[in-house]
């Protein structure tokens, strides 16, 4: 490393400084300004997302001649039927409930398995096996979500769920939830592993020296010490599950209903947006605009969760650095 530093530094010395001090300051300054504006772009993006969503949502709530649309009825309404019948209903709760149901199933599938795998990777696995497992997880993480959706529709439902019980329809919350769980598994796993590996080795040594088994060390020292990182990992993974679109659009169905029954079909917030943007509704119509209100709700939920996740994560980084 030192040799590299020396070589690079010597390179620089050789070239010398070709321009005058003023030129140099100008050059450095303009590069800095350019990079600064790139950085600002991220802030602009956030602002733009919020403005677009807020503007269109405002348009939805102030639309003329639709007494059924009000902020209050939107957030507490228990019926969502924008495309059906003469009297459309815009209560977002069934969509939120659908999202929650799928996310809960995904969490039940992915969080324990992900944490166990992370413990195995960080505490047990020999270096070679670890490399292989990380590669497998990386591939799983890269599989397009539409593939998981297809898998849920053509494998999980007909070959895993329907043999168990014939109450499962072709579209159901369970298959979508399992597929979303598989999708977030690599995220849970790699973030949890980062958190566990950040726990200093000296704590493990201390616990082993007291006669702990590997289980004691993992469950009573390492996981509690890395807990905030693990929680942050869970939050970030669940955020991904909430925002997941293609899996639920393919496998969960298209009927918005307020239910906790995993065999039933549900519509999530994202699936509704897909339905609208695929062109089932005329643009500028009330149904079309309603998708923006749904998107805004979704954005607020995920933004809030990632924000908490990032705060927790920062706290745990501060603990050990």
């Amino acid at each position: 490393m030192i040799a590299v530093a020396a070589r690079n530094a010597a390179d620089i010395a050789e070239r010398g400084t070709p321009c005058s001090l003023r030129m140099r300051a100008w050059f450095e300054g303009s590069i800095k300004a350019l990079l600064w504006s790139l950085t600002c772009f991220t802030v602009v993006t956030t602002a733009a997302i919020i403005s677009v969503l807020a503007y269109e949502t405002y348009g939805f709530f102030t639309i003329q001649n639709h007494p059924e649309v009000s902020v209050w009825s939107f957030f507490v309404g228990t019926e969502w039927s924008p495309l059906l019948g003469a009297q459309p209903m815009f209560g977002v709760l069934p969509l939120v409930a659908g999202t929650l149901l799928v996310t809960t199933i995904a969490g039940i599938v992915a969080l324990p398995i992900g944490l166990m795998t992370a413990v195995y990777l960080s505490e047990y696995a020999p270096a070679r096996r670890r490399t292989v497992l990380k590669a497998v997880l990386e591939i799983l993480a890269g599989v397009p979500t539409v593939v998981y959706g297809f898998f849920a529709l053509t494998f999980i439902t007909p070959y895993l769920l329907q043999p168990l019980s014939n109450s499962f329809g072709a579209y159901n919350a369970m298959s979508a939830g399992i597929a979303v769980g598989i999708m977030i598994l690599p995220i849970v796993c790699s973030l949890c592993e980062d958190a566990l590996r950040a726990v200093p080795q000296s704590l493990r040594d201390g616990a082993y020296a007291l006669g702990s088994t590997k289980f004691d060390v993992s469950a009573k020292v390492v996981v509690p010490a890395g807990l905030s990182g693990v929680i942050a990992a869970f939050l970030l993974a669940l955020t991904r599950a909430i925002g997941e679109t293609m899996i639920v659009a393919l496998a969960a169905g298209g009927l918005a209903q307020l239910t906790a029954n995993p065999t039933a079909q549900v519509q999530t917030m994202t699936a509704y947006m897909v339905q609208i943007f695929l062109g089932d509704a005329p643009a500028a119509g009330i149904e079309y605009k309603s998708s923006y209100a749904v998107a805004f709700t979704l954005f607020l939920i995920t933004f809030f969760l990632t924000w908490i996740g990032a705060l927790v994560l920062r706290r745990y980084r501060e603990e050990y650095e």
Partner: protein
Amino acid sequence: MMSGRAIATSRRLLKNRLFLYGCLAGTSIAILVLCVLMISIAIEGWSSVSWHFLDSFASRKPAQAGIKAPLMGSVWVCVICALVAIPMGIGTAIYLEEFAKHSRIKRLIQLNISNLSGVPSIVYGILALAAFVRFFGISSSDDHWSIGDSESFFYLHFPFGPSVLAGGLTLALVILPIMIIASQEAFRSVPQSLRQGALALGSTQWQVIWRVSLPAALPTIMTGAILAMSRAIGEAAPLLVIGGFLLVFHTPTNLMSDFTVLPLQIFNWAGRPQGEFHKLAAAAILVQLVVLLVFNSAAIILRHKLQKPLQS
């Protein structure tokens, strides 16, 4: 007392053992799932993969359908996405890691970036629909103004409409936060001693970055970029929002061409009730997974090369 302790010890050892088996089971599930996924899709789709499949356009008759348009669409969109997102991501990371001082504002920007990485991709689609496809409604699609003529490669019109360019920019929005975070970690892992060595020899801050930090961080950045791009290749939701083209019968010829991408084509076929189309979807997935495996192997090889000098 000894026997009591012996029992307690053996119980603890048993617990230890069970825990290991639990962890192993958890780990095997991940591998098992990957295998089942690959095998079930391979069985369903293998028979449909052929040169004809790669070289034909979509069709209402399953036997004649192919993925030429989505395949080329994916290539165009991803190239544009990479050209935009990778330099922007690296630039932002450089500013945050090398220039920005620790301050409240930097912390807020950092928090904002991690929040952006958690925003569902479909929401980026909505932003892109407003910003790139419609230019916030500044000019309506009827009276758009343009540069170049529609036959040429660099033909542009404003607003972009649901074009390849808009698609690429949309994906760039989606992966930009991932790209920034990966590059930042790469810069953070460059030892401070390298920078100080160069500074001590009288290099300017930009010279340090350009000649020391960036070369040292580049392999890690490229690994991150490949993984970010593998995310971009698989994205369907935001492109569905901006375009909604599910049937395209030509390959893109310039930045303003209509397009579809592989994941959208898969979604289209998977959503149909007929089994023949499911076979096509599986075949398209196989193609997609091969591309993905190529990307992942590239990342793994790159990382391997990267680790070697540290071992010697």
